[in-house]
């Protein structure tokens, strides 16, 4: 990094200019601490926060209603049928779990790669992971129709019926993958929070807040001996989360790939699902972080350099996904000698669901190519619009995979169409509301940016500058 402390400006950088800092200049340890914790402690809540909470809370109410009706009547209220036995439930499950993956990528993989720019976004992205996995988890539970009867074939416990889960099924692997993923993400997130909870405890004014933050901070006192073990534990958790995140979406893709349905039975699924998951997750980070940045005036930490880097990762993973689509089309139309495979691909492009395939290509592949331009990567408005386009595109990807593969299989007499009902839409919108509500509550009660890590980053940048200055002097 350059030693020149260049003030952060909004105009695009021309090559040869110094790299802008990760944190706006002029910050000290204290100002960082105060700026981030005051979002919560100052008690100044923007009107937009209440508005967001109200809307998302109403959507959660709708989710409760849709789920109640579902549990009372059964999955017949959804649009699923035979042949399309997997409808919105699995589409939304895969969409949500994919969104979660960016959190782990940012917090674990980028930590191992020593990418300092991840610091201001990782806490936020990890929280996103947790809430997205919660939303994802609702769908497999709800789609059983009678979740309280589903436990014995999902989890290995000695039931009175004397039966056990079937471990040769990818659906059981999925249960273990998703529950492990949630647990490890929660541990990782909590360990990262402990030093900041101590800061909140020490800075909170009211007795109640001090007690609550103090309880969760577990008496953290920043001892050097504790930091030593803490850093090892954190690094090991990152090392464990990295293969975990790859395994989770690979196993989700096995739900499809291990079957014999044309369009599902393909070895490209695991890598292309993982890349798609990271892609979707980065898009969701943008969708949430860009408004938050303005709402709580956190531009000093969500700098343009950060946005630029994230946009580049998003572009790269988007290209992996594009490769996956191209390879699927190549295998279906050119390479495979299997009639059903080539029919599937033609049907996907020109059949009754052709609109979904071409909208997918437009929103997920073509529009994001704008990210090649630096001007676009530094425009908050355009980044937001592109991230929304990818959110829609990634949802459509799962729609295309699930619905177009199932609706016309081997035997024309069993063909059918899939029409989601209002209950499908209400449940889906309800989980979006749940996700937003959790994020909105999270930014009110916990520091959305890791204070300890930003202090550390500040320390590293200062030392870099000093070393650079010494080198220049020598």
């Amino acid at each position: 990094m350059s030693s020149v402390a260049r003030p952060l400006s909004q105009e695009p950088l021309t090559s040869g200019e110094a790299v802008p800092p990760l944190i706006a200049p002029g910050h000290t340890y204290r100002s960082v601490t105060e700026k981030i914790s005051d979002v919560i402690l100052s008690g100044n809540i923007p009107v937009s926060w209440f508005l967001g909470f109200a809307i998302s809370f109403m959507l959660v109410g709708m989710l409760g209603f849709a789920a109640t009706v579902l549990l009372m009547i059964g999955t017949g209220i959804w649009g699923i049928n035979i042949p399309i036995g997997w409808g919105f439930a699995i589409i939304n499950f895969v969409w949500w779990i994919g969104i979660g993956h960016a959190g782990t990528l940012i917090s674990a993989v980028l930590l191992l790669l020593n990418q300092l720019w991840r610091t201001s976004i990782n806490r936020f992205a990890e929280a996103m992971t947790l809430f997205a996995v919660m939303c994802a988890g609702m769908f497999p539970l709800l789609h059983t129709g009678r979740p309280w009867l589903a436990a014995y074939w999902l989890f290995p416990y000695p039931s009175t019926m004397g039966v056990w889960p079937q471990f040769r099924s990818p659906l059981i692997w999925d249960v273990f993958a998703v529950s492990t993923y949630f647990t490890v993400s929660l541990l990782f997130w909590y360990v990262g929070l402990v030093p900041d909870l101590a800061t909140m405890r020490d800075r909170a004014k009211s007795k109640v807040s001090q007690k609550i933050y103090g309880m969760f901070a577990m008496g953290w006192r920043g001892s050097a001996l504790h930091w030593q073990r803490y850093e090892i534990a954190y690094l090991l958790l990152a090392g464990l989360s990295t293969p975990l995140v790859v395994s989770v979406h690979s196993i989700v893709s096995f739900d499809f790939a291990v079957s014999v349905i044309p369009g599902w039975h393909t070895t490209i699924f695991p890598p292309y699902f993982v890349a798609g998951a990271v892609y979707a997750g980065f898009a969701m980070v943008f969708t949430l972080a860009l408004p938050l940045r303005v709402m709580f005036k956190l531009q000093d930490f969500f700098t343009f350099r950060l946005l630029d880097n994230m946009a580049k990762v998003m572009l790269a993973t988007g290209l992996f996904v594009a490769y996956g689509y191209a390879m699927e089309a190549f295998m279906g139309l050119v390479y495979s000698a299997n009639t059903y495979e080539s029919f599937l691909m033609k049907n996907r492009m020109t059949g009754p669901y052709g609109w979904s395939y071409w909208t997918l290509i437009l929103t997920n592949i073509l529009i994001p190519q704008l990210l090649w331009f630096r001007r676009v990567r530094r425009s908050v408005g355009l980044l937001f619009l592109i991230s929304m386009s990818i959110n829609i595109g990634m949802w459509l990807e799962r729609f295309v995979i699930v619905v177009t593969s199932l609706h016309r299989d081997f035997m024309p007499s069993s063909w059918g169409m899939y029409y989601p009902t209002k209950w499908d839409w209400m449940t889906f919108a309800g989980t979006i509301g749940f996700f937003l509500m959790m994020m909105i509550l999270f930014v009110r009660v916990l520091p959305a940016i890791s204070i300890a890590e930003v202090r550390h980053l500040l320390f590293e940048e200062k030392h870099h500058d000093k070393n650079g200055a010494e080198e220049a002097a020598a």
Partner: protein
Amino acid sequence: MSSSHTAEIKPSLYGLMAEFESPDELMIAANRAREAGYKKMDAYTPFPIEGLDEALGFHPSRLPLIVLIGGLAGVALGYGLQYFISVIDYPILVGGKPYHSWPAFIPVTYELMILMASFAAVVAMFALNGLPMPYHPVFNVERFNLASNDRFFLCIEAADPQFDQDGTRKFLEQCQPAAVSEVEP
């Protein structure tokens, strides 16, 4: 406080704590304290500082070994669970696949390895650190709430064989701290 009372309050003292404004000053003080022969001391900082553990003379942690054991236990548990269920307790023939179809057991074994290793990392980290600990003497220092903000503290404990209230205080004052305070137990 006059020095004539020192002998009486000495047993009721946890240690002496110096406050520094920058991590570099703390680092110099920690190195000096180790060279001066102090063993029982600790530093308190708002973020981890590389090399501070060595400056204070701490040994490398056993944590990685515990995590390895946790991971191996997860492997044994995951594979054992599936073997017991699918081969011994509830063998069902599906599509002519063998009861002991080990490739199908890998994903769950893998997930449980990660799960147990992660639990081991977190539980062992807190346990070795002695957390949760609701009360600790260092919190009695009035300005200690800045240890989670922007100040850096070095505490030499009274339990150290070399500890001597006046001598240690003089030693700490030589390190140019912002303040030196007594830590009540």
